[in-house]
């Protein structure tokens, strides 16, 4: 018995010695970072630079495809295998905050170089839930108007439509001139809830009321904006069936439609696919109503709730938020920088189309910041589609939509009433 004890003791001593010998060699803290799609694939060159500056931290990046990211993150959190720091689409932040997966960054913010005024106000807002900050914007996007300058000029518009009135008029004239074509392409596929939401916000309306616990789709300003949206389809000004255009680039090139609302990723795509069209299209901030807002998009960096390496993760976030890192990241991915000072580089300043996004980003608003937002958005799309195809009238659709949304938000009301959320 005695003998066995000594043997075990010796073994323990040996392992302790061995690990002690390893220590001075360099003890690195490993920070696990999950990034999605192109960002995850292209970030590696920056990691070497970060390690050079912070020899005590090693960032391991895991690239996950966008399509699976949401499920993967939730299951990872449920199973306790979440990363330390992660890229999160900014409409997902409320959901991950609600389930307690991510931590407030307020304590870190106090003595750091990251300041809210370095960012676009509307984008910064997407990271604030109940007055507390949960993410730092990494890159940004939003939707603007893409238009065919030649076709608009042919109907008497030397400048893109500036407000709703002009927008509708220009559309009517475009279709009057060429009845075969449409004026507008507003994506109606599921999950692309952006355009109706933008119109509602521009009209000074809201989607939800009473602490985001009930649908507000029947309110006057909201209803008016939705009617404006549906009219584009009912008057045959906007493309209704996706099958009528092979793809948006071809449709834009062939003049099947002259205007569309889409994001920054299509600027380079359009240049690449339709080089011959270069001097005949451009971008502009969205036509205005009460205001000219677009929806705040992009992704933020978040730290998971019980990460033991939160301090190191924060240093990595700070590094990614420096002006020159942001510019290097733009060169790697073409994602628009979240830090405004990073836009002062010739590549961005001399690009007319990208400058449009800068102007639009000064005027963006977040989508409703609730965990159930995507469910609400999909429901809204479902009912609007039925209005577009004349299966329901708008007032009927809005009544049913409000009823369904109230049901979706029932749990939220219960949790809020009991202080559980």
């Amino acid at each position: 018995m005695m003998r066995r004890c000594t043997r075990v003791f010796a073994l323990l001593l040996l392992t302790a010695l061995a690990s002690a010998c390893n220590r001075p060699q360099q003890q690195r803290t490993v920070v696990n970072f999950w990034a999605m799609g192109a960002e995850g694939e292209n970030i590696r060159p920056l990691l070497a630079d970060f390690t050079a500056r912070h020899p005590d931290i090693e960032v391991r990046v895991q690239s996950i495809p966008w399509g699976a990211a949401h499920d993967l993150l939730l299951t990872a959190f449920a199973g306790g295998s979440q990363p330390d720091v992660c890229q999160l689409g900014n409409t997902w932040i409320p959901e991950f905050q609600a389930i307690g997966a991510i931590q407030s960054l307020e304590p870190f913010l106090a003595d750091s170089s990251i300041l809210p005024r370095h960012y676009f106000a509307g984008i910064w807002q997407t990271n604030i839930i109940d007055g507390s900050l949960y993410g730092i914007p990494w890159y940004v996007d939003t939707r603007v108007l893409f238009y065919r300058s030649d076709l608009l000029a042919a109907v008497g518009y030397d400048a893109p439509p500036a407000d709703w009135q002009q927008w509708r008029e220009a559309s009517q004239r475009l279709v009057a001139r060429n009845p075969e074509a449409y004026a507008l392409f507003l994506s109606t596929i599921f999950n692309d809830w952006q355009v109706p939401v933008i119109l509602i916000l521009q009209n000074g309306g809201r989607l939800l009321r009473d602490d985001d616990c009930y649908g507000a789709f029947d309110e006057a300003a909201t209803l008016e904006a939705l009617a404006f949206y549906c009219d584009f389809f009912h008057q045959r000004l906007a493309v209704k069936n996706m099958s009528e255009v092979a793809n948006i680039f071809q449709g834009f090139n062939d003049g099947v439609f002259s205007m569309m609302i889409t994001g920054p990723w299509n600027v380079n795509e359009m240049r690449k696919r339709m080089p011959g069209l270069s001097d005949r299209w451009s971008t502009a901030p969205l036509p205005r109503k009460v205001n000219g807002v677009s929806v705040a998009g992009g992704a933020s960096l978040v730290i998971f709730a019980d990460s033991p390496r939160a301090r190191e993760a924060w240093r990595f976030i700070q590094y990614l938020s420096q002006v020159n890192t942001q510019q290097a990241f733009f060169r790697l991915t073409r994602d628009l920088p979240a830090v405004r000072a990073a836009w002062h580089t010739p590549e961005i300043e001399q690009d007319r189309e990208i400058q449009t996004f800068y102007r639009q980003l000064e005027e963006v608003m977040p989508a409703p910041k609730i965990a159930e937002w995507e469910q609400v958005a999909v429901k809204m799309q479902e009912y609007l589609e039925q209005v577009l195809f004349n299966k329901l009238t708008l007032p009927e659709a809005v009544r049913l939509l409000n009823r369904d949304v109230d049901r979706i938000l029932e749990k939220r009301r219960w949790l809020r009433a009991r202080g559980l959320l």
Partner: protein
Amino acid sequence: MHRKTLIPWIFLAPALGTLLLFFFLPVAASLVMSFTDFDIYAIGKLARVRFNGLENYRRLLEDPLFWKALLNTAYFVFAGGPLTILVALLTAIGLNSRRLRLRPWFRLGYFIPVITSLVAVAVVWRYLYHPRFGLINYILSMFHVGSINWLGDPQWAMPAIIILAVWKNFGYYMMIFLAGLQTIPDYLYEAARLDGANWWGQFRHVTLPQLAPTTFFVTLMTLIGYFQLFAEPYVMTQGGPINSTLSVVFYLYQQGFRWWHMGYASAIAFMLFLIIFLLAMVQMLARKRQEAA
């Protein structure tokens, strides 16, 4: 315990233990879950779960999407099932013929779709179904049939899924039929021929009755298997267009893993179990009655 009764239990223990841990426990857990509103909020904190009795089941009965999914699934089962069995039976009879040469090769060929990954197969079938460049429409155009938008048209999407499923699955049932055919003793056919039965007569009065147990087994298996339609719409259509290929299990998946409505998804699972169980019972009873008669 007596030694003699103990020993079998020791041998059974590993299998039973695994089954208990990874099958019966999760099933029991999801049954309990189906009486709660377990959702995304509950992941972090169990205090956010409410026990709500039969509420999920009540809501399910008035959920138009669930009915739509059930109807689609029934369409798939009652059109695709018999078709699969028919194709399997006919190919099995063909392959059983002694006059056919290279029989093992044909058998292999028909069985390959069964063992091929559906995801790989789906890529090919999406090309075949392509409305403009697909092989199927090309062949149809030779018979002056207009272009069909197989996966894009709500009318055609389910038939397209059925054709794919029949092609993918018939090989398995063909093998079972083939085994059944080979157990039919030759002397029955000889006797039938002596009685002057032609090919049809032999098929009706010898082959089919002798195959009855096999047919029953195959029907039961397709019924159970086809009600759980999921992978085909998942890889081919994502339930679209306009929910025309939304199956019960796909709807369950959407509710559970897209919206994280685990309570509701569990209720769907048990509802489906109940439906399959009842239909299987009906089939068993019908078979028993037939045997008694």
